[in-house]
């Protein structure tokens, strides 16, 4: 999976949870919470949407590695 595939899936999952967010302006190392007001319930939904989109099962203990775009890229390109 390329970095660009992951980025596409992350942005699409964010749009599904928070359609009002301007995700095109994403900063890769700022948390989704700080940029787009993704709260903790949103975040759980986001990880689950992302897992579905990429057909990856993401164990709950790993969720908090996925709080930023770069975090997602690091974790999912392993």
């Amino acid at each position, binding site marked *: 999976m390329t970095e660009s595939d992951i980025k596409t899936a992350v942005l699409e999952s964010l749009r599904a949870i928070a*359609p*009002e*967010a301007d995700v095109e302006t994403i900063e890769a190392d700022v948390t989704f919470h700080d940029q787009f*007001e993704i709260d*903790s319930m949103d975040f759980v939904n986001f990880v689950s949407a992302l897992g579905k989109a990429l057909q990856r099962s993401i164990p*709950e*203990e790993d*969720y908090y590695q996925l709080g930023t775009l770069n975090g997602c890229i690091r974790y999912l390109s392993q």
Partner: protein
Amino acid sequence: MSPAPHERPLPACASRWDNAPNLSDYTTTYVQFKWSQAQQMLLQGADTEAPYHLNIAHLIVDRHAAGPLREQLALRWLGPDGQTRDYSYAQLSALSNRFANVLQDLDLGPNPTVFSLTGRVPELYIAALGTLKAGGVFCPLYAAFGPEPIRTRMVAGKATVLLTTTALYRKKIAPIRASLPTLKAVLLVDAPDSPNADDTNYNLQHLLTAAAEHFVIPPTTTEQPALLHFTSGTTGQPKGAVHVHEAVVAHYMSARWVLDLRPGDVYWCTADPGWVTGTSYGIIAPLAVGATLICDAQEFHPERWYRILQEQRVTVWYTAPTAIRMLMSHGAQTAAQFDFSQLRLTASVGEPLNPDAVNWGRTTFGTPFHDTWWQTETGSIMIANFPALAIKPGAMGKPLPGIEVALVQRQEDGSVDILDTTEAQGELALRTGWPSMFRAYLNEPARYQQCFAHGWYLSGDLARRDADGYYWFVGRADDVIKSAGHLIGPFEVESTLLAHPAVAEAAVIGKPDAVAGELVLAFVTLKAGYAATDSLRRELLGFARKRLGPAVAPRSIEFSGPLPKTRSGKILRRLLKARELGLPEGDLSTLETSEPDSDNAPK
């Protein structure tokens, strides 16, 4: 029938302590206690000759700053990048004096209403205390509110001053500023070090530096309004519950009895001060006792939370079911890497804590969670599991000394019947007159009166009482949604959805969720000419989130045919909920156990 293993009573947690708990003999204290005794305890060390000695800020900060706790740490703030800021009681006293002087120097008239809209920053605590000193009313708002809930509350509360940050101001206040005519000053916590942007936006740091450190609190009565907290009902706009300076008496006693707080305890309340718990038990109660507050600026994160408990050597922890369940689902491995041996007591509030979570606390932290029950209107904890009593996992607990609880049934004529049999189920009612009882719903005397009958406050919560006198939460008597411990009024959400041109009708319910308790689910009927597409669904979701913010907006939206209504045209949210839960629609007995709408009751 014996209870399932996870529901079996747990031994009193204080039985393992070296010292006796603050409340060691519940039964005797419950019988003998009078609130006047509590006030005497609280006034120890206070200058009772001074005309301001009943002011909350004097009692919880200045009193300590003038005594042996002067140099003790009152507040430790854990910032976003690992930085720490510490405030002793003396420093908190001096800084809140400066804030009171800032308010006075701005010449806002008597008793200004100061709203806050910030994340968890030290200035929030300083502003709350300074406002109380200046004789003002403090009203904290949750930073995750969108512009619409903020506007509604600031208009209703006639906000004079707003404490906020530059980013929140730009995003949420600037668009609504023109509709806030009473707002005279905005105090920016983090304004760039430059001249003020305009005549009414101020750089708080500049003002604090320029203000005098000495302040004499004006005369304060116990019945003077001090705090304003908004809460939601089924119908109408949010209600502004007014609390007075006397409330501190109940904050103080409940902190001692339920949280077992003592001077020198390191105490962490994870609730945001934007909600009532974060003010009552995140600021006032622990300072009244002389404890050290931990304030974490960041969002929930399991590993960091465990690290805070360990590194700050937290002794008493007050948190919420949603957070506990998220920690549980994060797995035991992370928790096992940390040392929680200094943790003496853990407690929970927000919604009923499931027995599994109570027990998980015991396995993970060495002490089970003590569930507590109270509301914005009650101002302080009313029912709790106490350290000296056996914990019943899943139960709300027993009433605090000084609090008389009954289960009642409302009657058609406005009276109530008291249900006094064991295992009876009814609406929780509290005998009026405890110090932190709300004194008004702002501008809404009729709505306030409807909460009372024959000397009882009617809570809108349904419960039952077992043979041992423990209360068990059953459900709400109305359609209010409780998500992640916060009350959400369907009307506020529906009104926003109806503002979208495609929406003909909207109904909002709480959909049960294993982690959050309930999630906000909206049913929407479209106007002719609009197709129920995924892209419209997203548009509506974004529309609602932008206006309401994530804390209030629906998490999901379903398109629906015409919504079920009564003959008078009231939407039957309960029927929608029954459908959503897959309950037979013909049998709504489990949903319609009581008056359907406490805002309009009695019918």
